[in-house]
């Protein structure tokens, strides 16, 4: 009799166990991180899965950002969206307008302290409708890379920067130009912002077609004309590693590539972008969005996973492995990260704490996908010698059209 009862108990116990095993919540995470970056994500995902037997997270590499975007758009129309995905802010805006994403922070069980631990600039980039819709994940900032053998003290102001650029070109007889640039939207933004300007104001009025915008483009063209800058074709880090240029402004995420190109040819370091009438540190990179098609259970599981990805220990792990920034204050201030920066002084400007105080970012509206193309082209046309005022007038018109289109559409 007793043995029978024991068998029965064991059976019930087994059933219960299999019951919990069946109740596993399965979530998917689409990202665009390959190589070392992908390995870091895979490692963290495996850790999380091991710690949470009731949740299975599947991290899937979906190509580069452009491919990931195509795939997300396709999956939205076919209703096969992942649970969470890496997204740029302007994608988020489009998803938000279509009502296909849910406010991720609401599913993360964040205390007020934890909420405020996310760096303020990043919270700003991820807020829609007053709510933290997406969570910052792989954030980078733009800094100035410089050849420390040629430039012992990096320039701090725009005037010093122009001066140093000229001197380097003169000193090396043009073999090494002071500065290297590509005609990009990002570089234009950097010069525009330190001149006191920006692309759009809060009410989405175009503000780049202004004296500040004209001055930014004139400064850039001027540097090419007097030989203090070199026009780069391809990635800047290659010309930099080859000593064709002594400085360039670029993403901190490119750090491993700069280290590769430079090798032991010379010493290099990073500094904040020189300040004009005001300092400015552009922040970029992607965030994690939660799709509304997930069940409540999946949403909470995803929230738990994202909370895990961005906790102090793991945001520091990811930052050290990849060159991106920790996304929380506690991560920035952790002993481990501070030690890492002390060991790698050339990365100090990347996590320059002051920069968070004057950080800025590109507009986060859906129409930006089109607008950024328009402005990027305008910069290229100016570099090809077209008159600045006409090019900017045209760009303003096209950007205003794109914004109007966006605002007039009903979702």
């Amino acid at each position, binding site marked *: 009799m007793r043995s029978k009862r024991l068998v029965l108990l064991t059976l019930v116990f087994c059933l219960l166990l299999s019951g919990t095993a069946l109740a596993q919540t399965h979530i998917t995470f689409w990202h665009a991180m390959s190589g070392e970056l992908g390995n870091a994500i895979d490692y963290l995902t495996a850790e999380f899965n091991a710690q949470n037997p009731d949740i299975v997270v599947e991290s899937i590499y979906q190509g580069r950002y452009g491919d990931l975007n*195509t795939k997300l758009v396709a999956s939205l129309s076919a209703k096969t969206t992942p649970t969470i995905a890496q997204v740029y802010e302007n994608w988020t805006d489009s998803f938000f307008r279509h009502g296909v994403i849910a406010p991720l922070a609401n599913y993360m069980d964040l205390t007020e302290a934890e909420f405020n631990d996310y760096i303020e600039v990043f919270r700003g980039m991820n807020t829609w409708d007053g709510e933290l819709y997406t969570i910052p994940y792989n954030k980078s900032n733009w800094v100035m890379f410089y050849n420390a053998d040629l430039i012992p003290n990096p320039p701090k102001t725009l005037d010093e920067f122009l001066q140093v650029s000229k001197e380097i070109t003169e000193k090396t007889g043009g073999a090494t130009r002071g500065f290297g640039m590509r005609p990009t939207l990002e570089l234009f933004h950097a010069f525009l912002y330190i001149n006191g300007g920006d692309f759009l104001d809060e009410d989405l009025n175009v503000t780049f077609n202004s004296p500040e915008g004209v001055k930014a483009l004139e400064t850039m063209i001027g540097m090419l004309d007097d030989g203090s800058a070199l026009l780069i074709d391809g990635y800047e880090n290659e010309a930099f590693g080859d000593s064709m240029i002594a400085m360039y402004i670029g993403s901190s995420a490119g750090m491993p*590539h700069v280290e590769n190109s430079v090798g032991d040819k010379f010493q290099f370091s990073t500094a904040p972008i020189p300040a004009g009438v005001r300092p400015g540190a552009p922040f970029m990179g992607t965030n994690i969005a939660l799709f509304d098609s997930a069940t409540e259970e999946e949403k909470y599981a995803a929230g738990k996973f994202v909370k895990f990805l961005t906790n102090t220990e793991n945001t520091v792990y990811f930052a050290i492995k990849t060159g991106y920034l920790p996304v929380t204050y506690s991560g920035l201030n952790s002993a481990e990260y501070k030690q890492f920066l002390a060991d790698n002084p050339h990365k100090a400007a990347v996590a320059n704490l002051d920069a968070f105080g004057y950080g800025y970012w590109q507009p986060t509206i859906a129409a930006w996908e089109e607008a950024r193309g328009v402005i990027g082209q305008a910069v290229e046309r100016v570099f090809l010698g077209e008159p600045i005022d006409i090019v900017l007038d045209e760009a303003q018109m096209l950007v205003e059209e794109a914004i109007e289109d966006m605002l007039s559409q009903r979702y």
Partner: protein
Amino acid sequence: MLAEQQMWRYRVRKTVTRALLYGVLLAGAAIMMLPFIWMITSSIKAPHEMTLKTIQWLPKVPQWQNYKIAWEAAPFDIYFKNSFLIAFTVMSIEVIFSSLAAYAFAKLRFFGKNVLFLLFLGTMMIPGEVMLIPNYITMVNFGWVDTYWALIVPWTISVFSIFLLRQFFLSIPHELFEAAILDGCGKLKYLVTVMLPLSKPALVTVMLFKFIGSWNSFLWVLIMTNTPAMRTIPVGLTYFVSDVGSYYNYLMAASTFAMAPILILFLLLQKQFIQGIARTGLKG
């Protein structure tokens, strides 16, 4: 005496023309080979050797481990297996369908033949990217996403191949067809025993184009699959490229081993391939 002199003159002229011809051909071959040689030498360079002001053909110390690192950066063993499986299956099925369709358009008489053929050709005018999202939705509805079905079935029909084969079939004299039919040969039997053996160069061309196309296909594979177990080599190559920089040396190493099978295939079938293109008047 005169004959001897003439003979001698003839020999000199022949040698000179030969030398010139080979000279030009060698120069052409060198120009064509250069990018490949650059790819292979770059694949064993150290990272900082990729970006030098002056051209440096060979690395100071060959970095053979680049191949190992590149191979291990992505699950290339799975990707290779998939690429081979998909390319061979697509190529084999496609050549059967294409030759049947081309035969019908070239030799058989049926209602609306020309209109149908024009409609077929019309589909070539629509860029594939436009159809990507509708096709994805179709694949989702079929339940084929992340399976070999999605990677194989849609590619087993190719209008281009049908067109190419039809043009070739048309060049085969119609008298041959009539004679065979008069002798009691069935239409299908004529295709298999007469047409196809005569069209070997065109068939090889079609098969090679298909194989290369399938081998290089990237966006379709990426969109239709979600797991590494279903993906192919081009997806693996993107692991070395990012928005802020590229690992060129590893990319070159991976490109070298990704290209090797196609190169071997081309060398084996070279003769037929060139004949096929020359006779149908088409270039790749």
